[in-house]
């Protein structure tokens, strides 16, 4: 049974990332480009002052975008290729299919993640505890975006709609909020708007953990709670609303 699940996970990873990376190597550059380009711009504009924040921001963007990528990929396979229908009429479970697709997004992001880990080690120097905290934040970010992406994919009926959702949500959650720079840079009335995005809390935790931002213990605890609640809420929505078999 375990062997079968591993094979089903492997199928999703092969189809959605490995074969694309192998047969179209240009995608390797593409996955690195988006997070790194913002990092470079922020670094130049701040004359190097925000390099560490920008590296952490690029990490958050990369993880969140991976999850959102799942939304368009699932929608593509379901609506355009009808592959999901073939998988539905097979012994593969919805959980194995989606988990495999989520893993494929991580594999797809490996070039970006490796680049960012190297930059993190070179410029941010997190200790073991800090690194574990950062990993936890990134994992929650990824889980949130994966569950959100999966839920949205079940509602989108074509690829144009799907890409529109994906682009919109990625921009709203990773480009506009203070992910690449401290929230203190945002004028106060607009700061409250930034707190509507879970990525703001993720960035606040990441920046505070590595000493780039001074945040009270209560604020940190609150940020962790918000992230956990958002992850759980989107997870519950994904499980209850998403449909494997159509009605």
């Amino acid at each position: 049974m375990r062997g079968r699940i591993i094979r089903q996970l492997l199928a999703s990873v092969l189809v959605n990332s490995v074969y694309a990376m192998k047969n179209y190597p240009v995608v390797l550059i593409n996955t690195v480009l988006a997070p790194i380009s913002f990092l470079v711009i922020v670094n130049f504009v701040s004359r190097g002052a925000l390099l560490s924040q920008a590296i952490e921001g690029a990490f958050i963007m990369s993880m969140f975008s991976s999850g959102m990528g799942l939304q368009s990929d699932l929608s593509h396979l379901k609506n355009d290729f009808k592959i999901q229908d073939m998988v539905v009429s097979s012994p593969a479970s919805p959980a194995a299919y989606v988990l495999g697709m989520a893993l494929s997004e991580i594999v797809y992001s490996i070039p970006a993640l490796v680049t960012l880990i190297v930059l993190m080690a070179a410029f941010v120097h997190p200790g073991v505890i800090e690194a574990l905290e950062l990993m936890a934040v990134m994992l929650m970010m990824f889980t949130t975006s994966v569950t959100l992406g999966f839920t949205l994919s079940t509602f989108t009926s074509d690829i144009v709609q799907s890409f529109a959702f994906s682009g919109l949500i990625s921009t709203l959650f990773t480009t506009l909020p203070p992910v690449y720079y401290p929230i203190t840079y945002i004028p106060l009335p607009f700061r409250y708007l930034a707190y509507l995005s879970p990525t703001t809390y993720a960035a606040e935790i990441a920046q505070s953990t590595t000493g780039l931002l001074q945040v009270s213990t209560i604020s940190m605890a609150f940020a962790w709670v918000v992230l956990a609640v958002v992850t759980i809420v989107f997870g519950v929505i994904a499980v209850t609303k998403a449909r494997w078999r159509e009605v």
Partner: protein
Amino acid sequence: MTKVYSASADKKALDGVSLSVKARGIFSLIGMNGAGKTTLVRILATQLEPTSGDAQLRGMDVVKDAKMLREIIASIPQEARTIPWMTPMQTVGSYLLWRGVPYSEGRSRAAEALAKVGIDGQRDTLNRKLSGGQRRKVMVAAVLAADSDITFLDEPTTGLDPISRKELWNSLEEISRSHFLVLTTHYLEEAEQLADTIAILDRGKLAAMGTLNQLRSLVKHQYSIRLPAGVAIPEVKDGTVTTGTEGQAQILTGEEEAYRLSAELLRAGARISVSRISLDDIFFHLVGEKGGK
């Protein structure tokens, strides 16, 4: 069984369809566009829930026992397409992995299935470089490699050239000796050639079902005489005459009258063809006339 899609609540995609068929050989569903063929296949293949009613395959309910049923079924949807960045081997191999087949066994089964549908020479070529017909064959190879008890093929030969279609027919005939295939098709000669049992769907309802001979018995006149344009149509005592837009004609009649009319036409020097009625004739009789075609 009934199916109403929420987007078009006033129209029933399936309207009280009730049928029972022995799960062996090839069962073909035919009907015009929108007749409900794909909806019925998707419900049976556990991809879609019926609005009311139930269906069982090998004693398993398609809704309640879907998990068990999925162990023994495979399906190729009507609009299934190959992924451009993959090769045929990768396409079939991945599908088998999803089904839980070990990687190495999947590769050998994939190679065998691709050879069976005539794609062995292109098995490592990217799908985007294949012709439309070859891509369709890759999808068919995937479900054939699954070696499932019951396989649903929704218009598998659409887009294939006549030779490829014949090759695929041979493969399907061979597989149907040990597996049950449910085939929907627009090509009536395909159903006539391959199917052991044929169901005709008409606007969501079952118009008729049976073997070709059983369907023939639903039509009064069993013989067809086809006349080219320009041939004077003799008086037909018992039968129907249909004239085409270009002057060609078809007479449907009984055996004795067909013999008499043929003799008369041949004496007049006309070049005619006489045969037992085909599935086309039956389909036209059962569906076309009601549909005003």
